[in-house]
């Protein structure tokens, strides 16, 4: 199984976490993901996901003027439902990662 297949299920949670730290835009999210070691994420793959998250009411967007002028930039914010989803993700991830780690450690013994 490739990294990108593994990542599919958790990328939404990662994006929710990034957006929860303050308003941010697409390219900035990719940079933050890369800073945390997510170099396998194809940059464009976040946009269909962001569209779905917006459709599901987890995020809202606002268009803002860029400091350099030119077209407006789209910034993302978390909604209360998004915050709730993030908390649930953290619990699910903790449980799952604990279980996976335990299994892998047994494998190595």
């Amino acid at each position, binding site marked *: 199984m490739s990294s990108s297949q593994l990542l599919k299920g958790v990328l939404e949670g990662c994006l929710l976490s990034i957006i929860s730290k303050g308003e941010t*835009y*697409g*390219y900035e999210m*990719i940079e933050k993901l890369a800073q945390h070691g997510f170099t396998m994420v*194809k*940059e*464009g*793959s976040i*946009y*269909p*996901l962001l*569209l*779905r998250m917006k*459709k599901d009411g987890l995020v809202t967007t606002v268009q803002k003027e860029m400091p350099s002028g*030119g*077209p*407006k*930039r*789209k910034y993302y914010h978390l909604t209360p439902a998004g915050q709730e989803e993030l908390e649930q993700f953290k619990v699910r991830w903790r449980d799952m990662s604990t279980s996976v780690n335990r299994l892998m450690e047994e494998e190595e013994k």
Partner: protein
Amino acid sequence: MNVSKESRDFLDRLSIYLITSGKNEKEIREITGELEDHLHEAEQNGKSVEDITGLTPKAYMDQIAKEMPFDKMGVFKYALVLIFGSIAFYVMGDAINGTMDYSWIILIGLPVMILFYGVMVARLFKYTAGKVLSKKKEFTLLLVMSGVPLAGMGGVVFLEKFIGDTAVSLGTTGRMVGFVLCALILIGISIWSKTPIMIILPIVVFVPQYFIERSSWSEETQLMMIGMIFPIGFMISLGISFLQIWRKERKQIA
């Protein structure tokens, strides 16, 4: 915003793909604008469109399209404009020529064929947007695919001429009202679509036709000239429209 030619081409194709998939115009502008912003920054860091999408253009476009709702009202609006615009253009020609007799064949067949034409052209644009085809291939496809329903429309008109019993017939007052109504519809569509094609096309087609029919040339020459007017007029109108769109885009980039 400055992006490379490849990125601009990808964004244009994505727009066409989403429009022909029946997505909302405002949402299309939003997502393409967001991707343009991303591509602009990515290119400054030495990345390309392929690095961003990581898939074939069509697969990526599909991923985006899947997450956008189908805009029923928008599609309905386009269908209405297409039907009313085409019928207004057709009826205007009749109003100028002085014969406004219509059979059920034309009253039902023409709107059906126009819709069929719209669907075919939309499908073709969606297909060519998702694949990287040579300009020659694209043009040939467009010619063949749009030619089929156009031939169908021609068939309806041909049938009407030979076996159509008149169901609706308009006199002089009816023709005047019809002409004014058609002119208003075409002007309205031009204002709505922000392109002058629906105003230019009737002028470049019907004005020469009016004078040719009243000239002293032989009937064969007249028919040949009238037959040539529509494609030439259509090309001129399309050229003017494209020039206007191109100028507007240049202005936006500057």
